[in-house]
């Protein structure tokens, strides 16, 4: 029809291609990580590497997805769930346990018990924040975020205080837990963490389809029939639980979410949160597995991976702050 020919075509680039590209890149990196330098020792090398790759993939996916959810709800692309102070609570819990009980106590040395304790404490903190600031009537996300930031600083200070008091030998153990590490993850931790993440995602799934509308802002979301407080509450709790699980598993990786979520926004020409979450999750896997590969084989372990990621993420954060004038 003549009239239809006059209408300009859609300006959007297809989203499938970049996602497939990311998936292939992630698969290749995982395969490389599994087989590189393994010559002959398959039986020994593969299972060990599989656990580490599993931990990296799980935390990459969890951080990628939870950051996109968090940024959609807060309508902000430089916030990450990290601002809520969960990672600093993690360091505080570790410091407190070691200070009070000593590093030989099973709550510290038994990684499984330690994992359960940390997850429980962080989940408790997240739910408490929600109860206080997101009850049925008020839905003030920003007040809640602010309290989270302040609480995070408090946790940080308390942890520093404990570290000053602590025995220098014990301090070494705290220090090793202050940064993310994939080397201490065992199969016994990986499975429960993966199952918990899956369960949380399944619980949040009904609210995920509201993400596109929530990103329009509260008024539009309400007008379009979203039960705003309920949807936001469920999604935020899910985000915190996911971050809690990931942090308890491998330790804090503050800036990873910022990097991979923004990478997804740049790479995909869409506002739709589904593809964005997929790209962000794959980006998380690529960043962690690829980073670890570069680290082990090019940099010969000269710096820990989180330092590398936080360095790159910090640069990106500065860049985003400087160009934040324009909307996304």
């Amino acid at each position, binding site marked *: 029809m003549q009239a239809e020919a006059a209408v300009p075509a859609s300006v959007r680039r297809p989203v499938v291609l970049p996602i497939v590209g990311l998936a292939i890149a992630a698969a290749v990196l995982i395969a490389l990580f599994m087989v590189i330098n393994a010559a002959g020792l398959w039986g020994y090398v593969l299972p060990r590497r599989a656990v580490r790759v599993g931990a990296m993939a799980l935390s990459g996916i969890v951080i990628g997805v939870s950051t996109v959810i968090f940024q959609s709800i807060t309508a902000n692309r430089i916030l990450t769930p990290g601002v809520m102070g969960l990672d600093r609570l993690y360091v505080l819990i570790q410091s407190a346990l070691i200070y009070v009980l000593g590093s030989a106590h099973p709550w510290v040395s038994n990684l499984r018990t330690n994992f359960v304790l940390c997850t429980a404490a962080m989940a408790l903190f997240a739910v408490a924040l929600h109860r206080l600031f997101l009850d049925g009537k008020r839905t003030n996300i920003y007040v809640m975020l602010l309290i989270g930031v302040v609480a995070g600083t408090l946790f940080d200070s308390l942890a520093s205080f404990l570290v000053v008091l602590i025995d220098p030998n014990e301090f070494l153990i705290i220090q090793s837990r202050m940064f993310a590490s994939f080397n201490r993850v065992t199969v016994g931790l990986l499975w429960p963490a993966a199952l918990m993440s899956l369960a949380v995602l399944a619980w949040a799934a009904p609210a995920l389809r509201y993400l596109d509308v929530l*990103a329009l802002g509260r008024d539009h979301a309400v007008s379009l029939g979203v039960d705003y407080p309920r949807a936001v509450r469920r999604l935020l709790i899910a985000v915190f639980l996911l971050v809690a699980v990931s942090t308890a598993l491998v330790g804090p990786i503050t800036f990873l979410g910022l990097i991979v979520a923004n990478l997804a926004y740049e790479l995909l020409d869409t506002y739709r949160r589904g593809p964005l979450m997929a790209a962000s999750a794959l980006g998380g896997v690529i960043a962690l597995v690829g980073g670890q590969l570069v680290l082990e084989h090019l940099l010969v372990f000269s710096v820990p991976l989180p330092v590398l990621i936080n360095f790159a993420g910090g640069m990106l954060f500065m860049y985003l702050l400087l160009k934040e004038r324009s909307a996304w």
Partner: protein
Amino acid sequence: MVEAHAIVKRYGPKTVLDQVSVAVQPGQLTSFIGPNGAGKSTLLSIMTRLVPADSGEVRLDGRPLSRYDSRELARRISVLRQFNHVPLRLTVRELVSFGRFPYSQGRLTKADEAAVERALAAMELEDIQHKLLDQLSGGQRQRAFIAMVIAQETDYVFLDEPLNNVDMKHTVQVMKLLRRLVEEEGRSVVVVMHDVNLAAYYSDRVVALKEGCVAFDGPARDVMEPATLKDVFDIEVAVGEVHSCRVCVYFAEAAQLLANGRAAQDVVVPGLR
């Protein structure tokens, strides 16, 4: 019918709405007019559940809004607020498609696409439907948002100053479209407006608010009285007729004419009749 019953709203010590009761009749175009800070926008927000009232109740067909399921309500009442900043990079068509969310939850059916097409056509947005919102002028963006609300196809449409940033030609286009929604599709439209002339001409009914109370509530034509308008807006207003259309003149010279004791009819622009 959407009824606001004895609505009270306070922001700190300031009472924005004081026991306001208004009923929006189905199949009518109702305008809320009044000076800045009279509570028009707040009343509209409360009647559309965007803002909770301190006391009082809003009912849709006799049932309180709070007792409706949010998705069901989104198919009955749509609302467009005054400041519409969207933090996403959306094209016009994508924005308008959001209006179908209450029906399809994001997965557009054929019927949804058709409704989007109709809304785009009604606002003459077909040519720019694939442009990004941040590439548009203020007026174009405003029309895109109105199209989103139209695509929602609700019985009641609430618009808070939809004519902001819209030029004369498109102002008339928007008002005619709202009239058509009322007359041809039997929908009810509520508009917050500043232009009394437009309100009186296009509305069936005008509700004037002043300092949180209803100062006038009646047929649109009756609001066009110098005394009524002076009471609402606190300035001298002259009312006359141009081409059998009642208009008011409220800027300095008109007031001067009135103050000089001349009849309102004199204000009619001589060359036009």
